[in-house]
């Protein structure tokens, strides 16, 4: 049985003054006009996982204006072992707090409740923009398979920042450099191995019959196998640049639509979106196979670039997986193919406050 979100309450969270939703485990379709507060619901759910949520916003940015009282989210997950209660909130100017089953805990502990994957319109330009966004996407995917990946990335970043400081300060202590480069090499090797394993898992769980073409994704990483030696050899060049020029922090995610032999960046907007959808679905299938639990999916404005046939295929794939998938769109017609297989909610905005109602066929 998959874990699913059964109750969600948003208090003074962005446009929601007080919104309470009850879910039965089916996919959830949320429709409403632009600016009505649909994505805010998805963002609230994303905050039930570690990190800054799908908008990467700070706690103060999530405060409902003009009251600025702070915000709170309360959620209940239905699990095989019974209900789990999760609460997260932030007072004005304070960091986010977390409580699970009425005990204070860290954000990382949220990761134990339910795996979560998301796709937002901001990611539509993933294949066109800089490598940083693609690395973040890849690392989030990798983290879903390898829980230690975050610690490795943090360790690598810390050692690299230390090395960059030595480079900028013109320090020439070879032993100090070597000590930091050994740390970067150790964490870097694990990061690269984790990323490659994640891409292999996605490839293994791609659906060849899906109308969403799976791009062949490869890690474009110039970091040599012996990173410590390469960093040592590159010190003079790095010193001139004032930063480390090689390593997994410079890796990129490359995607090629093999059927057409085209780089993702050269494909149409709809095709690029399809690559992302196929990657998310493959990620979800791989996680289901690995853990026995389908992850919660958050697909923001996912239907916007899809024709009716592809929308139906997406909904079929989500339902076949048994995943609780939260989707948003501007109108109910975008979710017509789901029929009774999903719960439907309508969101409207009145006097700056989101109003939510569940719709029954």
């Amino acid at each position, binding site marked *: 049985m998959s874990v699913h979100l059964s109750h969600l309450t948003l208090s003074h969270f962005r446009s929601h003054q007080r919104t309470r939703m009850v879910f039965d485990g089916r996919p959830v379709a949320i429709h409403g006009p632009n600016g009505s507060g649909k994505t805010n619901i998805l963002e609230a759910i994303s905050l039930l996982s570690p990190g800054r949520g799908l908008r990467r916003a700070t706690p103060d940015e999530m405060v409902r204006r003009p009251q600025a009282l702070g915000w709170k989210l309360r959620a209940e997950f239905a699990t095989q072992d019974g209900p789990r209660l999760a609460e997260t909130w932030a007072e004005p100017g304070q960091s986010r707090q977390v409580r699970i089953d009425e005990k204070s805990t860290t954000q990382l502990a949220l990761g134990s409740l339910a795996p979560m994957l998301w796709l937002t319109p901001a990611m539509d330009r993933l294949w066109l923009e800089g490598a940083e966004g693609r690395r973040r996407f890849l690392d989030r995917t990798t983290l879903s398979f390898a829980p*230690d990946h975050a610690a490795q990335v943090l360790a690598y970043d810390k*050692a690299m920042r*230390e090395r960059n*400081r030595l480079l900028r300060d013109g*320090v020439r202590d070879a*032993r*100090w450099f070597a*000590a930091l480069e050994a*740390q970067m090499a150790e964490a870097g090797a694990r990061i690269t191995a984790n990323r490659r394993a994640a891409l292999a898992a996605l490839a293994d769980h791609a659906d060849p019959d899906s109308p969403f073409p799976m791009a062949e994704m490869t890690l474009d990483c110039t970091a040599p196998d012996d990173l410590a030696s390469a960093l040592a050899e590159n010190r003079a060049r790095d010193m001139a640049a004032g930063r480390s020029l090689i390593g997994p922090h410079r890796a990129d995610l490359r995607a090629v639509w093999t059927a057409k032999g085209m780089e993702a960046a050269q494909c149409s907007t709809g095709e690029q979106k399809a690559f992302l959808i196929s990657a998310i679905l493959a990620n979800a299938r791989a996680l289901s196979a690995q853990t026995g639990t389908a992850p919660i999916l958050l697909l923001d404005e996912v239907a916007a670039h899809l024709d009716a046939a592809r929308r139906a295929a997406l909904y079929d794939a989500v339902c076949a997986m048994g995943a609780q998938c939260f989707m948003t769109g501007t109108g109910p017609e975008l979710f017509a193919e789901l029929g009774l297989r999903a719960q439907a909610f309508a969101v409207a905005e009145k006097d700056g406050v989101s109003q939510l109602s569940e719709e029954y066929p």
Partner: protein
Amino acid sequence: MADARDEIDALIGQFARLPGLGPRSARRMVLHLLQRRDQALRPLVMALDRVAQTAQPCQRCGNIATAPICDICADPRRATGEICVVEDVADLWAMERGQAFTGRYHVLGGTLSALDAIGPDDLRIPQLLDRIASEGVREVILALGATVDGQTTAHYIAEALEDSGVTLSALAQGVPVGGELDFLDDGTIGAALRARRAF
């Protein structure tokens, strides 16, 4: 002349600056001392004064001592040929509480951190090299934190000792004594698995 209340507030302020204490606990401590002048306040003043007069860093290992050479360095039974390198005195005390190590220590006084402007010259690494040559050391045990800074420092010392002929070792990482796997974080479990040994 300062008001008594000002003096007490200043004392509370001094206590509140100590590690692990805040204004509330500092107020409770000061009130406790004032209510028990003979039993608590005066003995504390005398103890503080004595420590202020006598405490000094051991010239050999960097431990805190009441003489130029600390008890551990002065004890010939601890000349086992093993030196345990620790970051600070608190770590030395932690090792001593374990009563498992019978050799001598070397306190570095911190760890390398370029971001905090702590370099090799700020640590007692040259003194460690001198001791290895003069004390017939056979093994150096690196008991440094499993942090990036701790491990960078360990790598640095390891390279500095490369040609010294001593055996280098580091503390193991993994399951604590009496610990249950269920309560360990993923990183610790991974480290324990990698450091597994024949049973």
